[in-house]
C-alpha cells in the first residue's frame, strides 16, 4: 500500500503543482490575487478541444491555445485588472467576476456537456506495480520543468531581477526607472502562460466543462497559502502536501473518500495554527 500511496500521491502532486505554480507566481511575485487563474486553465482546455476538434494536430493546437490564452489573458488584464491594480479587494472581486464571465462564455459556446480533450500522451505504464497514465507522468515532468524555468527566470535574468524588485517595493522600483506596469504585465503573461500549460497537461485528465475551474481554484489557493504567501517553492510543496493528504484519505478511509479535499484543507488549517505565515511564508523572502 505504501508504494500505491507514494506513486498516486506523486502523480496527483504533479497535477496540483502545475496548477499552483502560475497562481503562486502571480500572487507571490506579482502581488495580484488572480482568482480567474484557473478560468484561464479552463480556457486553454476548451481552446485545445476546439482546435483539435477542428482538425489541427495536437502540437499545433497546443501552441495556438497557449498563445491565445496568454493573449486573451493580457487583454482582459489590461481591461479589468490594471485599472484597479492598487485596490486589492477590487482586484479580488474583479478577477472573480472575470472567472464567472469566462465560465458563462464557455457555457454559451460549448454547453455544459462534459467534453473530452485527447491526451497528448495516451496509454499507461506501471510504476512499482501502480498504473500511471503517460499523461500524468508528462504533467509531473512539465511541473518540474516549469518550476525550474520560472526559478531560472527570477533568479538569473535581468527581467527576474526587475520582477523581484517590483514585488519588493513598487514605488522604489519606479523611482529607479523601471516600468512597473510593464513588469507586472509580464508577470501576468507568465501566469497566463503557466495556466495554459496546465490546461494542456491536465485537461485530458479531467472532464472539460464550464465549472471545471472551481475545484482547482480551491486547491491552488490552499496550496499557495499553505506553502506560504510569496513563496514559489512553498506553493509547489503545498500542492504536494494536499495531493498526498487526499490520496491518504482514499487509501486509509475508503468510505470517506468524498472527504479528501476537506481533509486536505483541514491540514492547511492545522498548519496555520502552528505557523500562521505558512510553511515558507517568511523563511525565504528572497523569492519574492
Amino acid at each position, binding site marked *: *500500500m505504501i508504494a*500505491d500511496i507514494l*506513486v*498516486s500521491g506523486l*502523480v*496527483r502532486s504533479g*497535477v496540483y503543482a502545475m496548477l499552483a505554480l502560475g497562481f503562486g507566481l502571480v500572487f507571490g511575485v506579482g502581488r495580484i490575487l488572480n482568482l480567474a487563474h484557473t478560468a484561464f486553465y479552463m480556457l486553454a482546455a476548451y481552446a485545445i478541444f476546439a482546435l483539435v476538434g477542428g482538425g489541427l494536430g495536437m502540437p499545433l493546437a497546443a501552441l495556438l491555445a497557449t498563445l491565445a490564452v496568454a493573449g486573451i489573458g493580457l487583454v482582459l488584464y489590461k481591461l479589468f485588472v490594471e485599472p484597479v491594480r492598487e485596490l486589492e479587494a477590487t482586484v479580488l472581486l474583479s478577477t472573480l467576476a472575470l472567472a*464567472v464571465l469566462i465560465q*458563462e462564455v464557455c*457555457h454559451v459556446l460549448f454547453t*455544459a*456537456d*462534459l*467534453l*473530452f480533450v*485527447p*491526451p497528448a500522451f*495516451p496509454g*499507461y505504464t506501471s510504476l512499482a506495480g*501502480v*498504473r*500511471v*497514465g503517460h499523461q*500524468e507522468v508528462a504533467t509531473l515532468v512539465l511541473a518540474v520543468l516549469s518550476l525550474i524555468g520560472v526559478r531560472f527566470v527570477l533568479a538569473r535574468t535581468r527581467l527576474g531581477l526587475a520582477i523581484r524588485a517590483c514585488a519588493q517595493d513598487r514605488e522604489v522600483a519606479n523611482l529607479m526607472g523601471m516600468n512597473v506596469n510593464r513588469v507586472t504585465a509580464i508577470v501576468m503573461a507568465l501566469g497566463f502562460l503557466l495556466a495554459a500549460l496546465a490546461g494542456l497537461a491536465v485537461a485530458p*485528465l*479531467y*472532464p472539460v*466543462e*464550464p465549472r*471545471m475551474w472551481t*475545484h482547482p481554484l480551491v486547491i491552488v489557493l490552499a496550496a499557495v497559502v499553505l506553502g506560504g504567501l510569496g513563496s514559489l517553492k512553498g506553493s509547489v510543496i503545498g500542492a504536494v502536501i494536499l495531493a498526498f493528504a*487526499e*490520496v491518504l484519505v*482514499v*487509501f486509509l478511509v*475508503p*468510505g*470517506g*473518500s*468524498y472527504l*479528501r*479535499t476537506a481533509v486536505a484543507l483541514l491540514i492547511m488549517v492545522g498548519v496555520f495554527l502552528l505557523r500562521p505565515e505558512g510553511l515558507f511564508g517568511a523563511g525565504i523572502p528572497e523569492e519574492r
Partner: protein
Amino acid sequence: MRSLICSFLLAVSVFAVGVSGQVIRIGVVGPMAYIQGKHHWQGAVLAAEEINAAGGITVGGRTYRIELVQVDSNEMQPGPDAVTAVERAITVSKVDFLVGGFRTEAMLAMTEVACDYKKIFLIAGAAENKLLEGRVDKNYNRYKYLFRVTPARSTYLAQAAFIQLREVMDLFRRELGIAEPRVAILAEQAEWATPIVTFLTLQVNAPLAVGGLGGRHVGTWRPSALATSLTAELTAIERAGAHIVFTVFSGPVGVVFGRDWGRLQIPVAALGINVEAQAQGWLEATGGYGAYAATVGIYADGVAVTPQTLPFIEAYRARFGELPLYTAGTYDAIYILADAIRRAGSLGTDAVIAALEATDYVGTIGRIVLDKTHDPLWGPEHLTGLGVQWQDGAPRAFWPREWRPDPGNRPDFVVGFPGTVPYQIPPWVVVHWQGK
C-alpha cells in the same frame, strides 16, 4: 447567473394546438445545465407536443393544451437554487403541476415546497425511498401530492442491480474459473446511493446457498458526486484484488470513472448504476474509454420493453438526435398526468390525486401501477429496467435475457426482452485474470 437568466426566460411554451386559450401549465424541474436536466426537458417537450398535436386534454367539455415551464433547479450544486426555482415556478409562473427532479437532497426540499402549495409533483428522476416512504403513508394529507414515475425506488434499483451482479459473477465463475469473485463498491456520496451500498455489501458476502452472491466484498469507496479524478480510488480497488467494481453514480463523476477506468485499463469489470453511461454521448464524453461499462438503464437500442418503447425512442431520436436518458421519463409522467386528468374529468387537485392513485398505465418503461406510497411497483409484470452495456460502440441490453424471477414456484417463468445480448467481460480483464 444561469438560473437567474432562466427564471426570466422560464415560460417556454410548446406549440399550441389551435384550440381554446385554456392551458395546463406544467413545470419541468431539473438541473438544466446538465445532461440529466436536458433530458427531463426533452422528454416533457416530446410528450407535450404529441398530446397537443392530438388535440390536447379535454376535461368537462373544455380542451386544454399543455404549456411547459422550464424550472432550472441547479440540483448538482448544493445551495438554495432548487427550492427557489420551484417556489418561483409556483408563485410567479403559476404552474399547475410539477414533473421531474433529480438529486434526493434537493428533492426533499422541493417536494416540501410543492406540498406547501398543494401542487401535484410527479417525480421522474430521483430514486430515494424516503421521498415517498414515511411521508405519503405516514402523513397522507400533507404528502398526498407526491408521486413517482421513474426510476424505481432505491431498494428496487438495488434489487435489479443485485440480479445483474449475480449474473456477471456467475459469468466470472464459468468463464474464468473464479469461484469467489471479489467485488468492490464505488458509490458517489449521495443519499440515494446509501441503501444500495448497504444492501449490496450484505448480499455480496452472503453464501449462494442462502440466496446471496457468494463472493467477497473487498471495500467500499465513496467519492464526491462531483469528483474530477478517481485514479487513487481505482488504484486502491485494483490493489484490493477486486474482479468486479460495482458503481453507483448519478452525476458527472460517472464520466470521470469511465475515463480513468478505461484509460488505465484497471482489471475489474464495471457494472452497477451509472447514469452518464445511459447517455448517447457516453463514448464521446469518455474519449472511447467507456467501452464495456455497464449500468442499470431504462432504454437501449432495439429493445422493446413495451409496445410504446421503440416508437418513443425513434421519435426522441428523430427530434433530439440521441437516445433518451432515464430522466426523459418526464415523457411517461406527462402522459400519466394527462390520463389521470381525463379520468378525473376535472383539474381539481383531489380528483386528479384519486385518479393518479388508480393509475394502471403501460408506458415506455413498463406497466406503471402505484402502491400505497405512490411508488411504482417493481417486478417482471411491472417495471424492471434493463442492464445495459456499451458493446461495439452502442448501448446493448444484457438483462433481462433469461431471468427466472421465481425459480422455486414458477420454474418455467422466464423473462427476457427481444434484442438483448450476453454481457461481455472487458477483454483486458479477461487477459488479466485468465489462469489466475
